[in-house]
């Protein structure tokens, strides 16, 4: 639920916050970062939900054909989720690298899908710069998103029970039995 909320706010921010576009010439991509967070910390159902719903939200606000973002997001999430035990998922720099690769991968896959569908997105040498900005954005946003989700989960979840040295089989019973 928290991941979905983050995806919703992320897509909205992508459509309304104009500073990266004005200063760097490209908009950051938030969804791949959220999908990475979901993939390294949740099960495949959550990853699928974030990819499908997030992709639909993004395409609804974009000139993309509806449904074009789902498959790339899911593919990245699926691969990471499948090998989540092999990645250093709790370390910030590992999350950064995953975010960078995921963002660039999702962007490239979307472009390939669009070209396959016969669309004509604006392409040129400037796209390389845009990929660089989007990748750097993903590298920064992914650890932040993961920390944010962890913090919010900590707020809403029950606190773990503190471990105790008490054992019932070693209890000293006093008095008459």
């Amino acid at each position, binding site marked *: 639920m928290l991941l979905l909320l983050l995806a919703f706010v992320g897509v909205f921010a992508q459509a309304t916050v104009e500073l990266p576009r004005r200063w760097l*010439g490209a908009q950051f991509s938030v969804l791949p970062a959220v999908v990475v967070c979901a993939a390294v910390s949740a099960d495949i159902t959550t990853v699928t939900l974030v990819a499908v719903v997030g992709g639909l939200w993004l395409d609804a606000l*974009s000139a993309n054909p509806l449904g074009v973002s789902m498959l790339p997001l899911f593919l990245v999430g*699926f691969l990471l989720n499948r090998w989540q035990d092999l990645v250093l998922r709790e370390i910030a720099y590992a999350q950064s690298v995953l975010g960078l690769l995921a963002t660039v991968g999702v962007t490239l896959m979307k472009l390939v899908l669009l070209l396959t569908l016969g669309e004509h997105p604006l392409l040129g040498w400037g796209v390389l710069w845009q990929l660089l900005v989007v990748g750097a954005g993903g590298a920064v946003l992914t650890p932040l998103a993961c920390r944010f989700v962890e913090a919010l989960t900590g707020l809403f979840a029950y606190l773990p029970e503190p471990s105790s040295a008490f054992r019932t089989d070693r209890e000293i019973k006093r008095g008459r039995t």
Partner: protein
Amino acid sequence: MLNRPHHVAWTVVVLLTVVLLNLPERAAGHAKFAISTLFLPLFGLVGSGQTLVEQGGATLATRRSLLQELDRLRRENQQLQLQALQGAAALRENDRLRQLLGWRTQTRWHTQAARVIARDPENWWRMVLIDRGSRDGLRPNLPVFTPDGLIGRVTDVGFSTAQVVFVGDPKCRVAVVVRETGEQGVITAPSAGVLDHRLVDLTHLPRNSALKPGQTVFTSGLGGVFPAGLPVGSVVDSRTVGYGLSTEARVNLFADTSRLAELLVLLP
């Protein structure tokens, strides 16, 4: 090995993708607007916030600066009234002459002001969402402009929002004429320079074109979407293409779409 949840996830995603990508254009458009209504409360919140900030800024303005602004606006108003009078006289004369020649009288332009509420989240489209829709009389293919010049056209219309594609997007081609030479061409998406939002290509020009930097480009009225006479931009440079068979030019748009907050939709 993939287990059952993995199979289910793959099936769901692939099926959904195939179904959605094969939806008819109209149905996909409706679905998009239905989904994007989820964001309307947030758009409303942001709009209210902006209005509050603007009002807050207005209350902080000094009396002296307000008086100066008032004085400037009064003078500007007088000049504009004079221009409006001259324009009205010219229009009356134009109508009379058209009547004498038996030509059809030109319809007057009606405009609808709109505010940009969102931009395309992807980097490869030039599209915005505006806060006017079918309830305000908007329909697809209406021209959109600012006082600086042409911006683009309305593509999809929802009940309270509409999508506008800018000149320079692959989905918005404009038939134009170069005022100084009378040559006609088509404004298309830039073949290079994706990062500069004001630079577009002017194609389909004749081989022996006499274009020079600084010449102005207006809509020609061909194609039926954009009325003739809307300013578009100025020529930056030109080059021959297709082994010397035709000429292409780069045009700098008059209107800066990257910093756009409000725009005007031309109603029939």
